[in-house]
């Protein structure tokens, strides 16, 4: 399946979430969405599969001090 273009991805995400935008705010939200896509690329840092998200809801004491 082809990767949707950004505008299609934008519309699909809003529709799936059940959200609607006033027409006059669509351009500003789409600009925000494009900026978020740029940021999202940073998350694609290569990580070994074993790097798990176990930040844990409980912070741990900083080791070594």
């Amino acid at each position: 399946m082809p990767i949707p273009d950004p505008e299609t991805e934008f519309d699909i995400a809003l529709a799936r979430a059940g959200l609607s935008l006033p027409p006059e705010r669509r351009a500003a939200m789409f600009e925000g969405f494009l900026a978020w896509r740029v940021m999202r690329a940073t998350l694609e840092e290569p990580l070994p599969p074993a790097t798990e998200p176990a930040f844990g809801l409980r912070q741990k004491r900083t080791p070594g001090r």
Partner: protein
Amino acid sequence: MTGGPVPSLAEASRAIAAGSLSPVALTEAALARIAALDTALHAFITVAKERALAAARAAEAEIRAGRRRGPLHGIPYALKDIYDAAGLPTTCHSRLMLQTMAGEDAETTRRLEAAGMVLIGKLSTHEFARGGPTDELPFPNARNPWDPARFAGGSSSGSGVAVAAGMVGLALGSDTAGSIRLPASYCGIVGLKPTYGRVSRRGVFPLSFTLDHAGPLARTVEDCALAMQALAGHDPLDPGSAEEPVPDYLAGIADGVAGMTIGRARAFDIESGVAEETLAALDAACALLESLGARVVEVTLPARRRTDAVAQTILLAEGFAIHAEWLRHRAAEYGRVTRERLMMGAFVSGADYVQAQRLRRLVTAEVDAVLGACDAILCAGSPAAAPLVEEVDEGPFRKAHPMTSAFNATGHPAIVLPCGFGEGGMPLSLSFVGAAFDEARLFRIAHAYERAAGWWERRPPLPA
């Protein structure tokens, strides 16, 4: 007491202990200060005058009967209006919450009440701790007491304004990306984001479960330490609360910084676009710390693009999870800025969120490693002095994200305090960031700097 600013927590505490200040007189002075200034500054949403006076009279009677509960007994405080206080509305500064009434206290409120403090009211915030300073809301937005045309910081804007204007000695705020530290920075006071899990968030309306921190804003570092002595501790009913012992935060606060190592995160500041005048103030702070016997070394923090991606992805996803139903069915009741920023969470996938949490663990370990070799990290509290309100970015997704959010991502404690004044006489600020659960060391370092630098003594240009 006159109509001037109320004393700091420590000053009030000493005066009450000595019998030279009564809780009723102090509470009346705070109410008079609010009445005189708040029509212009809009720090308060609710002023609980009768409740405060009744609590002050009860505190005074207890103290006179020899039953003083501790150093905070009889001193007024105020809450950001996302904290619950039984019998008062929690509006979150939103039309969506106008009909709410808290049935019980937040755990933090309960702790301050148990310490004998006097709740004087509920404070302005950005809507749901997420919107911006020009959103059209049911209550006006707080104004910076140094210059009403400038941003007071957010989202704990009323908390910063009320303390800076001398209406209260202590206000509680919440910090998901910098919302305690930025108002403290822009209003020229002290704000602490404690370690994640150190202070309960139960009864505080959430924005982002794994980034939210509750904490104090006050005039001095000592005042923050006094407040933290009452606020810190395990709450089994807050899933994020940590079971870590609470030390005596005041025991070593005056021990100085001789022999300590401070890690100067210059590259982090430069990457964050910190202004020249703030960089110069930070250099001066380093020189002062060295003159007090500390060693200052350069340290490298994770790149801002990584900490921003972690913090923003988690904030978007968790905030959307909380507000999704209302965004679908009551969207028009939000202010425009709040609504659009919350809606941005619709674009975050499950994989994005998990990837952000994985990366979060790595950047936290990287900051831990830096703190393994120094006692605290020193960086700017904000990139510059408060901008003009009309210059604040109120788009759905900011072009520049708060540098403070790096330590919401990692959970490390961070304290902000004044480090000078810039062009136009607006406060500049620095931040010390410490090891997890080592707020005591942060207080010691920040207190040494504060007393030597003396910036804390300056007050906004308001009636004396």
